[in-house]
């Protein structure tokens, strides 16, 4: 036994696969594979060299350069706006769908349950293509003023994000005691008041997690955005796509780092809230 301090562990020796040297090596290798490219991307956004390969000292000039790039900033703001819109609408629709499917029995319910899962399993490219065809065939206006020119992307994002919200909220509803709602009704509350004071507070962690998930999904998406952005709408992924095709530059690294930071912040928020619920004894 090499470990100097012997710690208590639930599974005894033979089951400690994690402590074998080869296992640790594989774990380490996979995590390096998963993280090294992103770490390099972030590190070289601070590198004082255009070549992106040799470390020449710390600088933030590429962030300043990116911040001065009006198109890039506009694209970034647009993407954040779409993500907030997606989070808001997808949470509402997803929660409504989850509540209906959990609470009521109606004809062809199994069809609805399957249908709600469709956007999760359909390949992204097919969904992107479908949205492209749909919006161009129904003549969705192309020349709307900002921010309405982002409506196609926002709508497409909501369509693929709200089933994920529904899954999260429904999982949360499974632990809801329906007698609470009935008790509220027995005490004279109307259907809306009963829902607001019993089911919705119980759903809240699911709603928050779902909203953050929708936000992250929207920020992460490239393919559907690519197919739904019009000729004049600039969004972050599409802008970066054109830059990436062209070359690898520290400026792209800087912008990517900012987006990674936003996603990481949203994730940290989600994890933090979940941990708090754990401590408070929910879930």
């Amino acid at each position, binding site marked *: 036994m090499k470990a100097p301090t012997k710690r208590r562990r639930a599974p005894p020796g033979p089951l400690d696969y994690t402590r074998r040297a080869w296992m640790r090596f594989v774990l380490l290798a*996979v995590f390096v*594979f998963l993280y090294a490219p992103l770490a390099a991307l972030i590190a070289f956004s601070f590198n004082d060299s255009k070549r992106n*390969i040799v470390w020449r000292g710390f600088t933030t000039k590429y962030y300043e350069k990116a911040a001065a790039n009006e198109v890039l900033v506009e694209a970034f703001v647009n993407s954040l706006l779409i993500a907030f819109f997606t989070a808001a609408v997808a949470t509402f629709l997803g929660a409504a*769908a989850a509540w209906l499917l959990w609470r009521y*029995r109606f004809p062809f319910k199994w069809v609805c349950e399957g249908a709600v899962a469709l956007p999760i399993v359909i390949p992204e490219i097919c*969904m992107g*293509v*479908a949205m492209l*065809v749909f919006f161009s065939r129904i003549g969705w206006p192309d020349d709307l003023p900002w921010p309405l020119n982002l409506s196609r992307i926002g709508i497409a994002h909501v369509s693929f994000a709200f089933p994920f919200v529904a899954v999260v909220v429904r999982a949360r509803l499974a632990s809801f005691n329906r007698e609470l709602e009935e008790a509220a009704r027995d005490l004279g509350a109307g259907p809306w008041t009963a829902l607001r004071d019993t089911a919705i507070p119980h759903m809240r962690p699911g709603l928050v997690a779902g909203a953050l998930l929708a936000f992250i999904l929207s920020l992460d998406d490239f393919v559907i955005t690519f197919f739904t952005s019009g000729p004049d709408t600039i969004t972050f992924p599409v802008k970066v796509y054109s830059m*990436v095709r062209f070359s690898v530059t520290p400026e792209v690294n800087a912008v990517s780092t900012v987006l990674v930071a936003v996603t990481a912040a949203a994730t940290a928020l989600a994890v933090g809230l979940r941990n708090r619920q754990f401590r408070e004894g929910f879930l």
Partner: protein
Amino acid sequence: MDPDSSGLTAGAGTGRRPERQRGRRRAGLLPGFAALGSGLWFLLFFLAPLAFVWVFSFGRQEGLIDIELAWTLDNYLRALDPLYLDILLRSIWLAGLTAAVSLALGLPVAVGIAFAPARWKPLLLLLVVLPFLTNLLIRTYALIAVLRTKGYVNAVLGWAAEWLGLPFEPLPLLYNDAAVVIGLVYVHMPFMILPLYAALERMDRSLVEAALDLGASRARAFWTVVVPAALPGVFAGTILVFVPALGSYLTSDLLGGADSQMIANVIERQFKRANDWPFGAALSLLLIYAAFGTLALRPALARRWRGPR
């Protein structure tokens, strides 16, 4: 129909009053509004777009923008053209290879996490999921910087060769099938690790101990107890990696060479440059059917393997 009188479907075990005692109560307009909102959105902005694609897949492109609804199967038959069939089979091959590599790398990771001390597990799982939450384009871009001719891998190899005094030519790591598979594995790894982990978490640990007590070597206990217990996770993970990998667009577009295209790239071309929407629509539907077909395998596989080992 009064929804309330029909009783609850889920949440069973919570409201256990007999059906007849539950008063008939008007549910108000609330469920109607909820159904109208989510249902209408789903119909309008999800099913309708898919229906457009479905209808177009039987159409015929006439001129630049007109599509005649010919109700023909020509577009589907065209997919059997050797040129496209080749790309179709290549996509299946690349996605299959991706699933295999993900499994080979993911199984040790899943075992490592499942048998790690309990307080490390959330952190390790988060570490698996975290890259997955980063924008796909950014992750692919990060890989370009690693793999390109002047990338980090070649730089490290170059320094090593210089140190050893060997001649060195940068390796062409980017723009080929290998780069596509690396990219796909990089992107889809969590889909493999998480189901494997879930399956291993459910495993009865005492079985391993029993095998060891009965004289099995550690390797044998691993192969006869741990691996079969992970099988449902293997099937789930393989399918969950295969399906999105089959339809991936960006990875093959940015990391692949001229001849490592996948179906999604062909679809994109039909809609953007080649401007043959009906053919693109037919290919999209074939891709959807392939995804559904693969997903449908899972319950069957799970049933088959649930029995005694």
